[in-house]
């Protein structure tokens, strides 16, 4: 699972929740930060997160004691039929996680002219873009994935399906690591475009807005 906080308060809460998620499903959880989140200072509050009820660990290697069988933790399955069964069980788990743990935020989405998908610090910058665009009479909406896996494909598809939406823009601090997922989610229903900066360059609101305007003008 990949968690992408957009500010430090969210980073604090998601880090705590990340441990509970990893414990519940026995999967690795990654926190995807960026250079800005890593260096910025913001006040945070602790104690805002309510810990989850965690499952009993009957599988743990704690010494056999009075247990009738040994607990063995491994990931090596030499027999193909056994490995396939394991793979199917894992797939079931992934499906369950996707169903229960997908997190995202919708911002200004209803009736938007254009939909932006952005996460982390980029999503904070896009809020400024949305405010600037509003002054020019353009309604920009945003889907902000909080989990990058599971990816909020259904939420993006639903927001993009609105008749008002003319296109979808993936803004990233990369050369395009998410845009393919956005394209899969939109599934050809609307045109998808990309704007990204990398190497530590931060996308500026006016540059993103300029990209949106040229996209709407049929140029990008």
């Amino acid at each position: 699972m990949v968690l992408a906080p957009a500010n430090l308060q969210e980073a604090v809460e998601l880090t705590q929740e990340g441990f509970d998620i990893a414990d519940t499903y026995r999967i690795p959880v990654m926190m995807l930060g960026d250079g800005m989140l890593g260096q910025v200072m913001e006040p945070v509050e602790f104690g805002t997160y309510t810990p989850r009820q965690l499952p009993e660990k009957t599988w743990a290697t704690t010494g056999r004691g009075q247990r009738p069988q040994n607990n063995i933790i491994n990931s090596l399955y030499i027999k193909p039929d056994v490995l396939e069964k394991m793979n199917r069980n894992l797939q079931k788990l992934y499906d369950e996680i996707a169903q229960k743990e997908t997190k995202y935020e919708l911002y200004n989405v209803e009736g938007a002219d254009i939909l932006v998908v952005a996460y982390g610090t980029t999503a904070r910058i896009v809020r400024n873009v949305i405010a600037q665009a509003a002054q020019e009479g353009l309604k920009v909406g945003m889907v902000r994935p909080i989990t990058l896996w599971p990816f909020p494909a259904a939420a993006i598809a639903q927001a993009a399906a609105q008749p008002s939406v003319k296109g979808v823009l993936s803004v990233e601090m990369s050369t395009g690591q998410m845009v393919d997922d956005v394209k899969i989610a939109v599934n050809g229903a609307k045109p998808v475009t990309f704007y990204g900066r990398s190497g530590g360059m931060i996308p500026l609101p006016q540059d993103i807005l300029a990209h949106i305007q040229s996209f709407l003008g049929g140029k990008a």
Partner: protein
Amino acid sequence: MAVVFQKTKMLTDAPFHYCPGCTHGIIHRLVAESLEELGVGGTAIGVAPVGCAVFAYDYFNCDMQEAAHGRAPAVATGIKRVHPDKIVFTYQGDGDLASIGAAEIVHAAARSENITVIFINNAIYGMTGGQMAPTTLPGMVTTTSPYGRDTDHCGFPVKISEMLSTLDGSSFIERVSVHDVPNVIRAKKAIKKAFQCQIDGKGFSLIEVLSTCPTNWGMEPQNALNWLKDNMVPYYPLGVYKDKEA
């Protein structure tokens, strides 16, 4: 009729997959007997390596974990720190411990983790097909040193017991062999003492066991035992390298 010998209950009934003449089987038995005789079977947690002994978790009759290649001492560190009252051991070959896992073993010893490491040195990578290992003797022929290990090009073998004994964190380190009965008996004593060291909370213990690989050495089992005695023992002298008690 009186029972004069029976298999230790700390080994499961799973048949060993080891090649004929390989001494892993003997060493498994010595480890299992030691756990049983010390009465720690119910609290023992073992960590298996990557290599020939990767299936050790099927053979030792206690809770077991599989670690990524070379990482057994790191996994054992985690287990022991969560369960300081349990007996935690790793069982690792020379490819696993002395090559990719060199950093983990050095720092586990340096931190004086209260774990026991059973280190099997057969001077070759067994499972992957007999490649040169960090422990391969100078001049020794392997599939990746077909003209013999050339020390000008490949450097020299790593002497793990000697190296780790220089660290203040290690508590008990002994090198033993299993090429004949007296040595098997000595090896058992050493392994038991290493576990006792952990039970007494004295810190890091490691037993290096010189072992044969008839398949990849290209020898019959008896010749392999003789080759070990004539070639490995002179290069890797047996004995106690560290005993904080002594």
